[in-house]
């Protein structure tokens, strides 16, 4: 079995329903039994909680219990006062390799100067950045929580403020395609597989972007983990492509 590094999972509770694998121990057991050797975890709590420091502290502690398997990606909300301290703690106190951003849940656009500043500080600290484009299809969101996907159009310009930033877009493929996808890939942005759709979708994406830009991601436990894994089987990938997507690209993206 090809070992998998899952670059996109979540801990804690989705705000609108209980999920079958939303207990960390159960999720870890399920992922390991399906060939995952490492998983990069954010917290659902980061979406709506204002006490981001508390969210990141719990995430770090939960991942510490499964050290070397769960890799924490804390969250930073640059619309909150003193967000720089959250970034500092993620880096210096919790030794996280990167942070996960939710601009649509936190209420800022990518052409907001504060986003450029956050990217710049991440690049300076050599922290990887995961930017979540959406969490769920806007058609099925709770009627009191409609959150549109992140508008990615300003991203190339924002990245100019942060030379060398390591950026991965999560859940990008429901909204990102065409020229902007190619432009971001050419600028070094990485992606993951969770929202790739259409028959043979992974193969088609690899026909559009460089092989080293695509990482394996499941969006579990919100999505059924098997979706990401079966997509690999559905596509006719070479052994080299498979190894790159499943493991090697992730190892290159962050160094632990």
């Amino acid at each position, binding site marked *: 079995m090809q070992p998998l590094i899952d670059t996109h999972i979540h801990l804690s509770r989705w705000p609108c329903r209980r999920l079958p*694998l939303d207990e960390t121990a159960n999720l870890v057991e399920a992922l390991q039994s399906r060939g995952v050797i490492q998983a990069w975890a954010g917290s659902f709590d980061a979406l709506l909680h204002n006490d981001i420091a508390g969210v990141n502290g719990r995430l770090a502690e939960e991942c510490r219990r499964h050290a070397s398997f769960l890799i924490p990606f804390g969250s930073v909300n640059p619309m909150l006062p003193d967000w720089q301290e959250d970034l500092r703690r993620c880096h210096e106190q919790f030794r996280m390799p990167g942070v996960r951003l939710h601009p649509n849940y936190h209420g800022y656009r990518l052409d907001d100067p504060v986003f450029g500043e956050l990217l710049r500080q991440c690049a300076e600290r050599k922290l990887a950045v995961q930017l979540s484009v959406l969490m769920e299809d*806007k058609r099925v969101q709770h009627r009191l929580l409609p959150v549109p996907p992140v508008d990615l159009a300003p991203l190339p310009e924002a990245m100019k403020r942060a030379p060398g930033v390591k950026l991965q877009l999560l859940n990008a493929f429901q909204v990102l395609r065409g020229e902007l996808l190619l432009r971001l890939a050419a600028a070094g942005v990485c992606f993951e597989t969770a929202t790739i759709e259409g028959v043979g979708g992974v193969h088609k994406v690899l026909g559009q972007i460089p092989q080293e830009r695509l990482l394996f991601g499941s969006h579990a436990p919100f999505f059924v983990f098997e979706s990401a894994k079966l997509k690999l089987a559905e596509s006719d990938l070479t052994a080299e492509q498979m190894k790159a997507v499943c493991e090697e690209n992730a190892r290159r993206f962050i160094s632990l």
Partner: protein
Amino acid sequence: MAQLIGFADRMGVERLCVYMGMSWSRDPSPEEFRKQNDDVLQALKDWSHRAFGFVYVNAKHVQESLEEINRCIGDGPMVGVKLWVAHNCRSEELDPIVRRTAELKAVIFQTTWLKTDGQEPAESTPMDLAQLASRHPEATILCGHTGGNWEIGIRAIRPFRNVFADTGGGDPAAGFVEMAVRELGAERVIFGSDIGGRSMASQLAKVVGADIPEAAKQLILGENLKRLLTPILREKGVRF
């Protein structure tokens, strides 16, 4: 079609239920839905051992729809009726279509969505479908996509034993199939893929990855459809 069968082979899918042809129309004229059904009939000529056809009709054109049902199911190889978004299924104009479909022992697939960000003008919700089902307990009706917002869709169809939840379309959200089995019973849940818009993988995962008994997965992945189609296939002399 050959390409879709190739992916089906790759993913272990034995049969595809096929509807609508090469150029879709959301509100087809009789001429348009006949053309789309001709495309499906053409595909079935080569792939009848791997595919079942559903005839696409539009309840805005009742008489022409009935004629098309007779052509494609009564006198042809198809086994079901596909209704999409042209006309809300709550309308009584659907009644003759549903009655004729039931007489032929065929099944009805009605697309449903309950969209947080707004419905299309005539788009049907699971609640609309429940209304239709209450008037036609003799008909076998598949609730396409279970409304997308499946937690509400499952509740809407729960009282109607002749309505089945389709798992196809929508993201592979965890918990959908578990809830459907809990509330409807595994006998009322049917696997659908919604390819090529969707990945066969993401849709299969909803069932394969669900925390339900293996026997329930077998029902959802094939045995339920087999049971529903057995009467019409027997009349057509088709073994499945």
